[in-house]
């Protein structure tokens, strides 16, 4: 497993040597900053309005600021995750360095896990930026930290699943753009599958909704740690990485 960390460090380095990491972190910080500013602004406005009316409008930072914001982090992630994973294998295949990895005395699994962990680390770095924003809420308000921690865990699990899928799709092509576009398409589809449950309640629609990444995030956003949703995400991660391993093996048989 030491090899896994060697690969992981190498991948992280190449994220940060090229502008990719800075671009992603910067874009994420700006977009999330805007969401945060909006959410807090609206919360303050609603609070003042409630006060002026003299009504007892229930105000809760967790419910009205944190919960919609963490859901939005997921949405931003949807756009950025393909950009994180698209290069993982496609670039190695194009430049021929895959031959180096495939003929070095390391296991495929170590390469795959190393690359996926590096992608996870970059995503975790993006989440760390949101923590800066949330810190202001703790400075001026009094939110509960536990639901936020659960939401972070949910975000990591959700991203882990999408990153695993992206890693898999990256092994299928030498072209980074194709890998990225395919990942975006699949992620988007997994996202919106849940919509069918709005008007249909047949078994197939419930099955489709179950497959949706979004369905399983709702409890996390509320701050509820539900085992079945954790199991769903972990299963998705394992499946994605398993497919990656299969694909890497078939690469050898096909190429």
């Amino acid at each position, binding site marked *: 497993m030491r*090899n896994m960390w*060697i*690969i992981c460090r*190498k991948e992280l*380095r*190449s994220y940060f*040597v*090229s502008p990719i990491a800075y671009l992603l972190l910067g874009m994420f910080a700006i977009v999330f900053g805007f969401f945060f500013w909006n959410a807090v602004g609206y919360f303050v406005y609603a609070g003042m309005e409630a006060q002026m009316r003299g009504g007892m409008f229930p105000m809760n930072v967790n419910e009205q600021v944190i919960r919609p914001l963490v859901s939005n982090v997921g949405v931003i992630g949807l756009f950025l995750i393909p950009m994180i994973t698209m290069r993982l294998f496609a670039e190695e295949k194009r*430049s*021929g*360095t*895959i*031959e*180096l*990895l*495939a*003929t*070095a*005395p*390391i*296991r495929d699994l170590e390469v795959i896990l190393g690359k996926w962990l590096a992608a996870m680390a970059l995503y975790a770095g993006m989440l760390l930026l949101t923590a800066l924003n949330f810190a202001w809420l703790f400075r001026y308000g009094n939110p509960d930290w536990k639901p936020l921690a659960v939401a972070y865990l949910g975000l990591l699990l959700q991203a882990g699943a999408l990153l695993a899928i992206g890693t898999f799709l990256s092994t299928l092509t030498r072209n980074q753009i194709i890998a990225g576009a395919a990942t975006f398409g699949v992620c988007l589809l997994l996202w919106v599958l849940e919509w069918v449950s709005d008007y249909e309640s047949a078994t197939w629609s419930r099955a489709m909704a179950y497959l949706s990444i979004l369905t399983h995030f709702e409890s996390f956003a509320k701050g509820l740690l539900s085992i079945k949703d954790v199991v769903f995400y972990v299963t998705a991660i394992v499946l994605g990485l398993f497919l990656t391993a299969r694909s890497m093996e078939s690469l*050898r*048989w096909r*190429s």
Partner: protein
Amino acid sequence: MITVQQLTKSYARSTAVDHISFEVGKGQIVGFLGPNGAGKTTTMRMLTCFLPPTSGRAAVAGFDVLEKPLEVKRRIGYLPETPPLYPEMRTIEYLTFVGKIKGLRGPELAKRTDFVLDRCAIADMKDKVLGKLSKGYRQRVGLAQAIIHNPDVLILDEPTAGLDPKQINETRDLIKSLAGDHTIILSTHILPEVEQTCQQVVIINKGKLAATDSVNNLRNRARGAGSVLVEVASRNGTIESEIVQKRLEQVPGVSRVLFKETCGNHAIFEVAGRSDRAIRGDLARAVVEAGWDLNELRTAAVSLEEIFLQLTNTDDANAESVQASGDAVQTATGKAKE
């Protein structure tokens, strides 16, 4: 050190490597020779565990490539056709990374890194970004990564392709200096390279093994039973080549006389005899006694190119066309070197 038995790689529509068998002893340099698309790279990829064979067996240092890939990979240093470099890395970072994934740690890693930097003469490029190195330096960094873990076997896929003549010489010298400690297989389609660097040749064509032998044996083999070129001149103007040919055929030990060309008062014959040495004296005497001049008497030199073409030409071309295309290859390689 390397054993290959009936190795085959087939795809849905084609067979890239077709039942190839050969063996390489410890410390040898073996030239893997064949025209483009002959299956050299595929064979090498199977030896390095990058591709699994469809059937047959390949073993490196006693370990089978399918059963014990990790053991094989530990003992092999591989330089693919394009050096597998990460363009954004610096030379030293790259070598350290490769050393690590090949199992080197701590002081040993530092020692080996310094060693290969020195050995491949890339110490000056230590802190340069790989993407900005010239072709020659990339090749050397590629070679450095192949030898960093001091492997028993080195597999080099066209190590001199695309280099300038000076770099080609340097690379060849480097490869030669690595022999002894390492068993080396190098593929090439440049023949002089094999003549200069290798002791043994494996020639493949269209996926099939065409020949495997030592360079010297191959040369002797193509000479056949010892062909001798004889140039005969007549003293009085013109020469009757048929008369000369008849006379030469009567010399004891001569099995075949081939008329090659005539030019003014002299004619050239290629004489094949049962034993190279014995017929020369008789030939010379016969020519002189018949009243002709013996202008030249020499062993018909055959370059590896001709052997190669003879072996890889599927249709039985006559000697002349082989000669002609041999010249074409010569000029082509000459140009490539310029």
